[in-house]
């Protein structure tokens, strides 16, 4: 906790020019911001929009609560972004999901749950591109943008993880919940069709998980939602790698916990240098 606080203090907010996004659209770019990781998340978003040069609407979920100055910093970079205050979400979501008590209970107890429970309802789009605050983009994400443009119904696209996020093997998950999972789904960069988000099955899974009293994370639930039959990977250049260094072919890199210290800051500076020539940052 202390180290993440220190990292948050060390990292500066990106000094990029304002990036104007659309008010609405079929795909929303979503991110969850907390007090520790909001600056790194801004670097994630600047690196994505800077390289992708797209205008998909941006929805950021303030799970801090962040200060007014943090809001101002976000809106300076992304003037058209929709910021969701968690207190406002607390007004809407419990009523909307009154039939799914496990979902409502989980979002009250686990911070990460808001990404999978709140954002599909509040993002205002049929599909969401979820970006984690530990991801940075270093090149034009061509394959990801092709997927964004394709609009295939029900699709679920992600980077490839290094290990199975579920506490059980795929066979055990199938035996217990009747879902075939793809165990390599990574939530760092994730595109999902949420137009008919299945809160019913999610509530059922959570019922089983709670009885099991295991702390399964958001990634496991997304993996189950993705289902093995429709989950796909963006491409090798978006895979999560163990090496702290950036590989030549990598379009994006997910900085896992052990690399978050200095590596992320170095990565952010590299993003800045790359984007200087594209006019995203001012010299």
């Amino acid at each position: 906790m202390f180290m993440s606080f220190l990292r948050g203090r060390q990292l500066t907010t990106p000094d990029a020019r304002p990036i104007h996004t659309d008010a609405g659209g079929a795909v929303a770019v979503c991110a969850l911001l907390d007090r520790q990781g909001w600056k790194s998340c801004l670097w994630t978003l600047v690196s994505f929009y800077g390289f992708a040069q797209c205008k998909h609407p941006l929805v950021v979920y303030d799970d801090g609560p962040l200060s007014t100055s943090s809001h101002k910093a976000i809106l300076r970079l992304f003037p058209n972004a929709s910021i969701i205050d968690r207190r406002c979400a607390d007004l809407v979501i419990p009523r909307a999901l009154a039939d799914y008590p496990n979902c409502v209970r989980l979002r009250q107890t686990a911070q990460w749950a808001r990404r999978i429970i709140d954002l599909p309802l509040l993002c205002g789009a049929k599909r969401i591109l979820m970006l984690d605050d530990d991801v940075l983009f270093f090149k034009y994400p061509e394959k990801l943008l092709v997927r964004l443009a394709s609009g295939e119904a029900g699709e679920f696209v992600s980077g490839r993880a290094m290990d199975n996020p579920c506490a059980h093997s795929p066979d055990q998950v199938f035996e217990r919940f009747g879902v075939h999972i793809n165990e390599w789904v990574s939530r760092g960069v994730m595109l999902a069709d949420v137009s008919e988000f299945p809160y019913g099955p999610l509530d059922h899974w959570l019922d089983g998980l709670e009885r099991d009293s295991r702390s399964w994370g958001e990634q496991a639930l997304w993996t189950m939602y993705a289902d093995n039959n429709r989950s796909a990977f963006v491409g090798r250049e978006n895979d999560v790698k163990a090496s702290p260094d950036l590989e030549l072919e990598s379009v994006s890199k997910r900085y896992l916990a052990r690399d978050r210290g200095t590596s992320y800051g170095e990565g952010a500076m590299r993003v800045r240098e790359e984007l200087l020539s594209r006019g995203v940052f001012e010299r």
Partner: protein
Amino acid sequence: MSALKSVRHDVKATWHHGWPYFQHRYLHRLPSPDSYETNTPMEGQLEVHLLTCARDFQMAVWAALNLTVVSRNKLPLVIHEDGTLSRRMLAIFRRYFPKARIVTAGEATAASEAAYSRYPCLLSLRRRLKPFWKLTDFALFCKAPRFIILDSDQLFFSTPHELLRGPAQAPYLFLRDLVSTYSVPLACEPWQLAPRVACGLGNVDKRRLNFERMESFLRAGTVDIERCDMWIEQTLWALECACSGVEYLPESYAIALGPGWEGKRAKHYIGPSRDYFFSEGIPVVERMLREEGSESQVVAETLV
């Protein structure tokens, strides 16, 4: 909310939002009434109807002034008060909107009791829920074929052309809600409700309102009239929309879930996001009105 909770919220909100919030929320700053020409017409084809109470009074003044200025004084304004407004508040309304019609609670109740005597369920809800007056009273006191429903917590950041123009085909035009928030499920056999209707902002053809149908819906027993909450009003609007047709305002008309106004034409500050009405919305509108109007001086008004 208990008094202690309320004070706690106020202190926290002031700490979080800073001086702009404090001065608008607690010093009740209002623009000088002489600075803007609020010369609304007495009659027209489209009227603006606003229901307000003492708690929302300051917001209502800003909302009505905001719409009057961005619509260039073209729309007759009708202000409905729920019986909680003080004489001073009514006087302030009259000072800001000299040509607006102010419908008092007593006048509205007398007229509604007579006009809706054939609809006991509707009347019962009207007696119990004040937000329900928007459904019964707006249509009753509207002299034009169409009216705009304006909530006190609504602000406009540019001219709302789509709202003023009205729907292209359907009789109703409403703000799109984040989720469907009704007293009954969307499919409530044999009834069907239109999804995601937010009745805080809309443009309505009053001739198409079917109170017979609403009464039948309430009589069918799908809703407990004695216990249902204020969402019943929105539910009945959604019923009308499903039966007669509805169009939605574009995405630039947003429901506020947090801060941020750029790229938006209008924002509806619901629930906890009302704090942003004071900290973000009023300063933006104030700036906009200042640019629209002449050299105006914003003065601090003490309303209480």
